[in-house]
C-alpha cells in the first residue's frame, strides 16, 4: 500500500499552515497511517480489533486510537519486514523499566531527519553556525549510553560547524580551555548551542557558578530538551533556568523542546513566549486521565502527541504520561501558527503495593 505524503514540506516554514486546512489534511494522514499500520503490524491490528472493533477510519482527531507510549517498553511493534529495519532506537528508560524499542527503516529515519531540519532551521536559520554541545563527546562512544542522548547530539550536530564539546569525558567537568578557545575563534559570530536540560544545568551552569566564572556566548541560541523531571525535583522553574543561563553564560535565546524517542524528528519547540508549538508534522491534544475525554483548551490533561512521520512502527498517535495545557489552535503572539501548549510535568507515579515482594530484593 502506497502512502501519500501531504505534509507541505516544500514550504520552508513548518509553522505556517492555516489551522482549518491542517485539521482536514491531518485527519486524512492519520487515518491513512492507521490503516497502513493495521495492515502491516499484526500486534497493532490485534489491539485495534480488541479496542476499536478493527476500525481504521475515524471522523475526528480525538476519535483516533492512541497507543499508550509505555506500550513500546512492553512489546515490540514494527510495521516493516525485519530485514528493512535499519536501526533500533531505545529510550534511556527509568530504572527498573525496560527501555522503549523503536524500529526504524530507511524511509522513516530519513523523514525524521527532514522534519528535524525544517523545524530547527526555522529557529536557527539555514546557515551552519559554530556549535557548542553542552555535553561530553564520550556519550557517542559509550554503546550502553547511546540512546536518546547520543541520537539527539548526532541529530543536532548537523546544524553546526566547528562542533565543540563543553564537557570532558568521563568526568563531565567543564572543559574551560575548549570553551574559551571556541569563544575566541568565534567572537562576534552567532553561536548555536545544544544540550540536555539537566546535564547542562548540573554540569555547566552550576559548575560555572561554583567556579565564579562568567561567560558571554554573545549572539547565541540554545536548544535543549530531555525533560524537566530532575530540575523540577530541585524546584527550578523555566524562568529561573533561563535567567541564570543568561546571567552566567550570557546565552541570549533559549528554546526548550518537547520530544520523545517514540516520535523522533517531529519535536515541539518552545517559542519566545514560552509555548511549545506543533509544526505541520505534529499535532497535540490533552485528555482527562480518568475518562480519556478530550479536554478543552486551557484545561490540564494527559498529552496525546501525533506525528505523520512513524511509518516503520505504529507510533503516529501516542498517549503520553505527561500533563499539559493546550492554549489554542492558533494565535500565539510569537507569530507561529499551530497548536501551542505548556507542559505541567509527569503523571505522579504510585504503586499499588501488590503481591510482588516480601522484602528481600536488594534496593
Amino acid at each position: 500500500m502506497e502512502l501519500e505524503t501531504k505534509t507541505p514540506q516544500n514550504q520552508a516554514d513548518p509553522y505556517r499552515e492555516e489551522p482549518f486546512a491542517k485539521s482536514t489534511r491531518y485527519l486524512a494522514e492519520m487515518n491513512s497511517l492507521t490503516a497502513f499500520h493495521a495492515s502491516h503490524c499484526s500486534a497493532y491490528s490485534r489491539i485495534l480489533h480488541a479496542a476499536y472493533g478493527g476500525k481504521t477510519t475515524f471522523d475526528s482527531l480525538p476519535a483516533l486510537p492512541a497507543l499508550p507510549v509505555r506500550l513500546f517498553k512492553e512489546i515490540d511493534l514494527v510495521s516493516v519486514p525485519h530485514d528493512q529495519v535499519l536501526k533500533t532506537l531505545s529510550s534511556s528508560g527509568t530504572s527498573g523499566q525496560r527501555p522503549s524499542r523503536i524500529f526504524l527503516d530507511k524511509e522513516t529515519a530519513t523523514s525524521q531527519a527532514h522534519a528535524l531540519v525544517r523545524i530547527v532551521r526555522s529557529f536557527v536559520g539555514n546557515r551552519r553556525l559554530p556549535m557548542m554541545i553542552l555535553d561530553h563527546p564520550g556519550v557517542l562512544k559509550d554503546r550502553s549510553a547511546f540512546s536518546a542522548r547520543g541520537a539527539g547530539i548526532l541529530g543536532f550536530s548537523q546544524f553546526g560547524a566547528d562542533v565543540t564539546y563543553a564537557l570532558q569525558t568521563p568526568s563531565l567537568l567543564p572543559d574551560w580551555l575548549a570553551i574559551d578557545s571556541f569563544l575566541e575563534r568565534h567572537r562576534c559570530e552567532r553561536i548555536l548551542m545544544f544540550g540536555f536540560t539537566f546535564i547542562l544545568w548540573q554540569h555547566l551552569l552550576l559548575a560555572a557558578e561554583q567556579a565564579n566564572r562568567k561567560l558571554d556566548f554573545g549572539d547565541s541560541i540554545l536548544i535543549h530538551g530531555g525533560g524537566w523531571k530532575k530540575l523540577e525535583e530541585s524546584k527550578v522553574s523555566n524562568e529561573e533556568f533561563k535567567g541564570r543561563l543568561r546571567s552566567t553564560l550570557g546565552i541570549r535565546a533559549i528554546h526548550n523542546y518537547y520530544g520523545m524517542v517514540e516520535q523522533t524528528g517531529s519535536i515541539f519547540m518552545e517559542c519566545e513566549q514560552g509555548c511549545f508549538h506543533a509544526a505541520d508534522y505534529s499535532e497535540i491534544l490533552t485528555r482527562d486521565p480518568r475518562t480519556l475525554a478530550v479536554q478543552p483548551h486551557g484545561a490540564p490533561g494527559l498529552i496525546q502527541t501525533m506525528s505523520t512521520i512513524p511509518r516503520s512502527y505504529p507510533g503516529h498517535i501516542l498517549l503520553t504520561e505527561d500533563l499539559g495545557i493546550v492554549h489554542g489552535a492558533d494565535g500565539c503572539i510569537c507569530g507561529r501558527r499551530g497548536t501551542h501548549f505548556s507542559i505541567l510535568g509527569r503523571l505522579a507515579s504510585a504503586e499499588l503495593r501488590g503481591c510482588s515482594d516480601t522484602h528481600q530484593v536488594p534496593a
Partner: protein
Amino acid sequence: MISVLVPSAASDHDAQLQRLTAAGTVRPFDPIVVDFIDAISKSVLLDLVMRRIPEMAAVAHWMRKAHVLELRAAFEAKRGQRIWLGRGTALHFAPANVDSIFLYSWFLSMLIGNANIVRLSQRRGEQVGLLLDKINAALEQEKFAPIRDRSLVLAYDYDDSLTARLSQACQVRVLWGGDESVRRLRSVPMNPLASEIVFPNRFSLAVLSAESIIQSTPEQMDQLAQRFCNDAYWFDQMACSSPRLVVWIGDSHRCESAQKFFWPRIEEELARRAVQYPEVVGMNKLVTAYVSAGNSLVDHIEHNPTGLVSRAHLSSQAGPGFRSLECGGGFFFERKCPDLSRLAPLLTERDQTLSYFGFDHKQLRAFAHSLPTRAVDRIVPLGTALNFSTIWDGSDLLQSFSREVDLQ
C-alpha cells in the same frame, strides 16, 4: 537498619532472640494465649478509628474468644487422642500486600504454642502500626509475660546474614510473598531440623452462573455487588485471593445478558464507596489491556480501560500466561464457559481461590474432583475470598505449625 517493633521493651533483637528460644513452647490453646488474642480483639474493637477499617474489623472478629474457641474445637476434633505439640520457634516473613496476614500467621502459631519471630515488610501499611501499638500495650501487662518472652517482631532491610541467623534459630519457617522474594529467602539455609511452609504468588478467579445473576432481584444484585467489591477491591485487587479473572458460566447469549446486568452494579457500588485510585493506575490498566491484546491474550477490551472497572475478554487461543500480568486496581480478564466441567482443564497450579456464585455444593464437589494437578486450593462463596482460614494454600496451618509425638 534493624528495628524491633515487638516487644517494645526489647530494643536489642539478639537478647530477645535468646530469651525467646530459651522460653520454648507452651501447651496448644493455652488459656493465656486465648486471653491475649481476645484482649487484642477487644482493644481493636474499642478503637474508634480501627473498628471502622473493614480489614481491621475482620481481624478483630477473627480474634474474638468465641472464634478462637471454635478453632480449638476443630483442632481437637481433628487431633483426637493423638499428641500434637508446638514445633518450637516459628519464623514468619510477612507479605507487603496484605497487612493482616502477619497477624494470622503469628497468632495461629502462637495458639499452637510456638514462640514466634515475625519479619515485617518495610512497605507495611499504617494499619500494621496501629495493630502493633495494641499488641505492645497488652504485652505490658504482667499476666502476658509468657507471650512477651516468646515474641519478636522486627523490620530490617535486605540482610541475608540476619535472615540466616534467624533461620538457624527456628523450627519452622513461614514465607509469604512474591515469587522473587520467596525464591531468595528459600536459598538461605535454615536449621536442618526446621520445616518450611511457603505462600508464593497466586492467582484467583470468580466463577459466576449467568443464569443465577439474571434471575437475581435488585436487592440480591446489590448484595452481590457488595460481595464482589469486597473480594476484588479491598486490597486494590492486589491480594492473592482477589479475583482477577471472572468466568461466566452459561451459553454465550446468557453470559452477555448477565454481564450487562452485573458490571453496572459494580460501578455503582464503587461509586457509593467512593473508591478512587491515582490516575497512573488507569494508565497501567490501559497498558495492560493493550499488551494483552498485542500478545493475542485478549480479543476484546471494553471501552475506557482507565476507569474503575476495566475488562478484557480472553481470546480462545489465550494460554495460561495472562496470569502473570499483575495490574490491580480493578482490571478483570473475562471468559465465557458453557459449563463448570469445561472450566476445570483451563486451571493451573497458580490458581488459588475460586469464589463462586450460583452453584450448589453437589456441582462444586464434582468440579473439585475434576481439577487438574495442583490447581485451586480454595472454593468459597463470592464475598469471602479474603476471609482468612486455617486451611490455606492446601494445608492446615495449625497442623503445619505443630508436630506429632507418636505414642505407641
